[in-house]
């Protein structure tokens, strides 16, 4: 009896070991290193020199614009993704013929097999002067510029993160009990109020999951604004890249990184709370 419990504990430890070691080595230790850096000072030639000061945190307002841009981009980008993703997920879950469903779902996921970097480069050429603007020039609209505009950034974001939004919404719609829809119709609800009162409401957990997934990834986004926005809009991800690779102010970069992690956690908790409330106190695990 006692021995078997010991064996079970040992087995649990053994099975959890690799994952724990992985997290300690690649998450906890780097996080500690970043935290230590963040209270240090920039060495005269750049990099890190040991110190204990909160000067880096006091300096955070120097990147206020970057934080602000990120705080706008993340929800706006996630919302744009949601508006595009919901109808797709709805069609896939409730309207698409059964035999097509798997193929259509695969089509949603397949672009993920290629690196986002490659796909974003493809957009650079599609939107660049030799892409769509060349076609427009052919029919008489000269010198149209699509690349390096806010619209191009939004397009890139929606394109890049769409599958992350579609899949959770699809899952929650797919589980939907169809009899509820029939009941709603039988009781005289219009299709619109059925959608708002039943379908949308029951799919909210999926919506919130997709929304927070996309939003948290967008908080660290720097590639799409750089490539499709021409580097003119500066997000917190861009600030981090510059601080580590250009001005080599590691302590300030670390302080910003820590702050970004804390902000992400707050966003996650807030999203979780909201989601719990709107889905009628049903607890939803977002991650």
């Amino acid at each position, binding site marked *: 009896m006692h021995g078997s419990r010991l064996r079970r504990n040992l087995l649990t430890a053994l099975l959890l070991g690799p994952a724990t070691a992985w997290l300690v080595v690649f998450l906890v230790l780097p996080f500690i290193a970043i935290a230590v850096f963040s209270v240090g000072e920039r060495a005269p030639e750049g990099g890190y020199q040991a110190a204990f000061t909160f000067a880096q945190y006091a300096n955070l307002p120097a990147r206020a614009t970057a934080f602000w841009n990120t705080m706008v981009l993340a929800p706006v980008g996630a919302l744009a993704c949601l508006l595009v993703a919901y109808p797709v997920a709805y069609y896939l879950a409730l309207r698409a013929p059964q035999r097509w469903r798997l193929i259509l779902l695969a089509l949603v996921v397949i672009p993920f097999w290629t690196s986002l*970097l490659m796909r974003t480069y493809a957009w650079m050429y599609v939107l660049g002067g030799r892409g769509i603007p060349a076609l427009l020039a052919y029919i008489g609209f000269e010198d149209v510029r699509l690349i390096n505009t806010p619209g191009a950034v939004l397009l890139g974001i929606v394109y890049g993160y769409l599958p992350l939004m579609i899949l959770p919404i699809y899952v929650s719609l797919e589980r939907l009990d169809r009899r509820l829809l029939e009941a709603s119709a039988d009781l005289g609800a219009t299709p619109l109020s059925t959608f708002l009162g039943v379908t949308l409401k029951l799919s909210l957990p999926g919506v919130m999951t997709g929304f927070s997934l996309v939003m948290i990834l967008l908080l660290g986004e720097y590639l799409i604004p*750089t490539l499709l926005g021409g580097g003119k809009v500066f997000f917190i991800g861009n600030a981090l890249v510059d601080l580590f690779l250009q001005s080599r102010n590691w302590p300030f970069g670390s302080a910003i990184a820590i702050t970004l992690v804390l902000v992400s956690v707050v966003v996650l908790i807030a999203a979780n709370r909201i989601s719990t409330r709107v889905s009628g106190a049903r607890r939803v695990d977002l991650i």
Partner: protein
Amino acid sequence: MSKSYRDGLPISPENFVDQLMRLKRGSIGRRDFLGLTGLGIATAVMAREIGIMPTPAFAAESLGDRMSIATWPNYHDPATFENFKKDTGVAVEVNVFGSNEEMLAKLQAGASGWSLFVPTNYTISTYKKLGIIEPLEMAKLPNFDGSQEDPRFTSEGTIEGVTYAVPKNWGTTGFAVNTKKLTKPMTSWKEFWDTAMAEGDSRTMVHDYQLTTIGNALKYYGYSFNSLKQDELAKAEELLLKVKPHLFAVSSDYQPGMRAGDAWMTMCWTNDGAQLHRDIPEIAYVLGKEGGEIWTDFYAIPKDAPNKPAGYALLNYLMNPQVAVKEHLANGAPSTDARVNKLLPKEVLDNPILYPAADLLTPLEFGAAATLTDPGRAELMARFKSA
């Protein structure tokens, strides 16, 4: 989180596009593309870093079978490395970089894995001070002949009589203009910045690089390219913030935009200017008459180079004028070596993009070490980019 695949990229996005453009123009083969962008060797590098593959021995003349070099985009004749491999059996991994700061950051972090790299003049004293580079063993570089080097371009490789780096080539920083789109002739940085806010509105690019973007904004007022004076930098910042909303992009990857016709004017380095003009004749290269930057790129060997013998062997190979001349024809930047210049065809030596008139060269300044590491300029750049 899901970003790990980007963080580990062997090449920055900017350089990747450079190489992609070259591939599209057919100036490199697909295998070279994989090699140059580092995509092809990524797995091999990883295998080596975690110790699966044998580390090259430090034995006297053993060159091992591979080494890596950190350099700039569009900077080498791919055939150079293939021939080097044929001669020595050493495969060269090429890591392409976008800025000196990025190279410095990688070397400061340690274990870069490079056995040779290409720093620009103003970084060498910093590398020496940080103990990242060591004096070169000149006996291992018989192909280098200091007496044939133009001292104007080579002095910063030698500190207190000790040679830490030997020159590769030199060049200038001016701007490229699509003269079909912007027909008014321009000769100065003042015109560059004014045009960016007028006819060149939303079609002008500046470097994503504090040294040149701030430096050339300082030239608008005739201040030194390297100025660290508060009041002068404040004026430059005022100009930059005023121009910002009119820009097409803040990026050092300007060839694709210029080639596609999205951008009409950009800050530009000699070699890119020569390449753009060669392929699209209406793109002109202009040196601001107020001055601006002149630079020399050097070769140096990191102190912690994993394969020093191969680093020296490749460096010596590159110093052979017969090899260097091909490098020069491929990258389009002028050589510092008189022996190489003798081998160059006349039309190259007569190209005013590569060899500007003396009166345009005189006011140019070499970037200063203090400019590179100045935190004030770095913060100014961040304010400009986030504006």
